[in-house]
């Protein structure tokens, strides 16, 4: 194997595969990236068995062949090189020679025989706008659980229906639900897939440079989910288990609403949270007579309060929330004003963007029980 490649081309693709590289070194080959030189391009792959990323980059291939090499070291080497042509050649015993300008490296490698074969992406079920998918992920990923018992909460639920695209995530304490209109009328049946948090995070990276017209081809096998974006493919094991009946907990009677400036609310909560209880991170919200008061108290440190003007007169609400949960939503939504909707002091509160949006975004948070 021998090829010449532009440093930046290679660096970008190797960088994108890092998320699928195994950090623990129990199975050494999983810490490696696979380089396969074919005609005019290098195919790259990395996998930790849960997640796999494949990509390719243009190269001048002098001699086809394949090898695996430690992904992290390979990336660091590429990063360190000047922005010039890089000459890469496989030597005996899977050693790799990397040369660029006056620098040269000899990096250890492993034969490709033991590198796991990634599941093959056979049929795309649907094409989704890359920007839309990224938007759904950004608005829900923070609500995905990291659970050791209720595994089904460790992923976000993607639902594709003929006229809508929906993502839902919950950790059992709060739930983010976002729905966009879509045109998937050719679908033979609705799609429902549980995407693991790690895959969502990698998709965020892969999709971050997507243009307005770019799309993602989505498909699924019995065990895996596939996301193809141009030459890049992300394969993820799907989350198994029964996602809870989230529709049952979407509030229907939260008629007592107040509209607030997103940034003002976030600033006040961050301020008051400085003296929130270290364990529960509770801030108390008291809403009454055109005022929204935010309070916290900490047995060891003291107490804090702040208030915002609010156009509200639907009866007093006195309710406590984990401040981080509220801040997560305020950071994810883009609208400058938000609506906070309540039913009573004990039921879940709902947050949503107040302005007209081309999507429907709801965030449901359970209060603290006293």
């Amino acid at each position, binding site marked *: 194997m021998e090829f010449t490649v532009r440093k930046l081309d290679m660096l970008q693709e190797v960088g994108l595969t890092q998320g699928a590289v195994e950090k623990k070194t129990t199975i050494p080959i999983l810490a490696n990236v696979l380089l396969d030189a074919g005609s005019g391009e290098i195919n790259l792959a990395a996998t930790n068995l849960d997640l796999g990323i494949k990509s390719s980059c243009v190269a001048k291939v002098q001699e086809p062949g394949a090898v695996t090499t430690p992904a992290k070291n390979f990336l660091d080497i590429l990063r360190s090189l000047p922005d010039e042509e890089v000459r890469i050649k496989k030597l005996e015993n899977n050693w790799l020679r990397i040369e660029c300008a006056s620098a040269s490296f000899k990096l250890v490698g492993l034969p490709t025989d033991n590198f796991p074969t990634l599941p093959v992406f056979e049929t795309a079920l649907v094409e989704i706008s890359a920007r839309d998918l990224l938007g759904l992920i950004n608005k829900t990923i923070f609500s995905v*659980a990291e*659970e*050791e*018992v*209720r595994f089904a*909460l460790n992923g976000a639920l993607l639902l594709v229906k003929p006229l809508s695209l929906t993502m839902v995530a*919950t*950790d*059992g*304490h*709060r*739930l983010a639900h976002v729905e966009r209109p879509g045109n998937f009328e050719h679908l033979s049946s609705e799609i429902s897939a549980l995407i693991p948090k790690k895959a969502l995070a990698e998709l965020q990276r892969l999709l971050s440079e997507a243009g307005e017209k770019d799309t993602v081809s989505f498909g699924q096998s019995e065990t895996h989910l596939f996301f193809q974006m141009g030459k890049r493919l992300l394969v993820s094991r799907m989350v198994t288990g029964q996602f*809870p*009946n989230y529709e*049952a*907990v979407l509030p229907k009677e939260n008629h007592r609403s107040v509209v607030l400036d997103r940034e003002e609310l976030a600033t006040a909560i961050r301020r008051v949270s400085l003296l929130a*209880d270290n364990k*529960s991170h*509770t801030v108390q919200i008291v809403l009454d007579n055109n005022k929204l008061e935010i309070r916290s108290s900490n047995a060891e440190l003291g107490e804090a309060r702040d208030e915002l003007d609010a156009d509200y007169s639907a009866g007093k609400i006195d309710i*406590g929330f*984990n401040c981080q949960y509220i801040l997560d939503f305020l950071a994810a939504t883009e609208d400058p004003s938000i609506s906070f909707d309540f039913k009573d002091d*004990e039921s*879940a509160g709902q947050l949503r963007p107040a302005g007209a949006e081309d999507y429907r975004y709801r965030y*449901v948070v*359970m*209060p*603290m*029980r*006293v």
Partner: protein
Amino acid sequence: MVRHSELHGLTIAHLDCDAFYATIEKRDRPELRDLPVVVGGRHRGVVAACCYVARARGVHSAMPMFKALKACPDATVIKPDMKKYAAVGRQVRAMMRNLTPLVEPLSIDEAFMDLAGTEALHRCSPATTLAALARRVEEELSITASIGLSYNKFLAKIASDRDKPRGFSVIGRAEARTFLSDQPVSLLWGVGKAMRQRLSRDGIRLVGELARIDQAELVARYGKIGRRLWLCARGEDDRRVEPESKAKSMSSETTLDRDTAELAGLRPILWQLAETVARRMKKAGIAGKGVTLKLKTADFRIVTRGRRLHSATRSAEELFRAAEPLLVREIDGRAFRLIGIGVHDLVEAGQVAQGELFGSIGSTESKVEKALDAVREKFGSAAIVKGRGLGIKLERQGPSKVE
């Protein structure tokens, strides 16, 4: 009564019942009075307690039963009756609480007490009060206890062990350092086998050798425990006697009838242990977030595996579901002699808690559990069991621990 120049100025005591389980059994079966008695699992398991006759023959507690019987073949082996022992333990504790509210139980049969400021109330010094307590325990309960009296907890506990059984031992300020200096480091609070070996590698075997090193050096070498070593080596201990210290963990474990490597044999036992812990948590009004599985291999290696739950629980079902996968992962052919489950990171019911969106996840199970608890409350704990706990009867469930 002992003579000691500081006798009437010391207030911290440690009371430890003598060969507690065995003494109770002898009390209830007088014909065994002069015979060796060992309490523990019959076929297997370990010695939970043994009388002084058996001790003289080389038996000691925590010894595997087969070894105990080798050393003392004519011993009468009695299956432990934890209910009975707990009742006696409560009687002893009540007598202690009669003397001071500052009683800090360590286990079923031992506790610290602080008698400072009780002189006017009892019209005598703590030492005299304690002597009367020992007498009362003996007369009313027909068991004996040993008492250590000192100026801190660490030394009081050492003292109670010095003169067993029926002992009354005093360690005063003047003699503490001299007494400690030629004792092995293992006497110190917090120095277990691993720490002892570590100290020994550094050439420290006696408390006196430790006392010669300064605090900063010990902290640099051993971390946080270094300060404690430094204090203890000087006979100092700044812990107070804290009544009803809040439980930090709850656990239950059992030594198996025979070494078991198979999941099928261990699962039902794990379930029963989870039920025991859950029952006790419900009784104490607490719930916990951290679940620990403990295993001891046939060659006495201890394996602990833990995980954190999303929210605190006291449901046997949830504890089991958290611990079972941990157990499954350890099944690799090794045989285990002990299994236990523990819960830590406890919260009290009534504390501020995050509300749950899906009360319905697992709520059917918790309804089942409530119904089970109600049946047991009425008809006893064996009245109803889940299928996964069937077919196994715990021969000897080790004492449940609250720490």
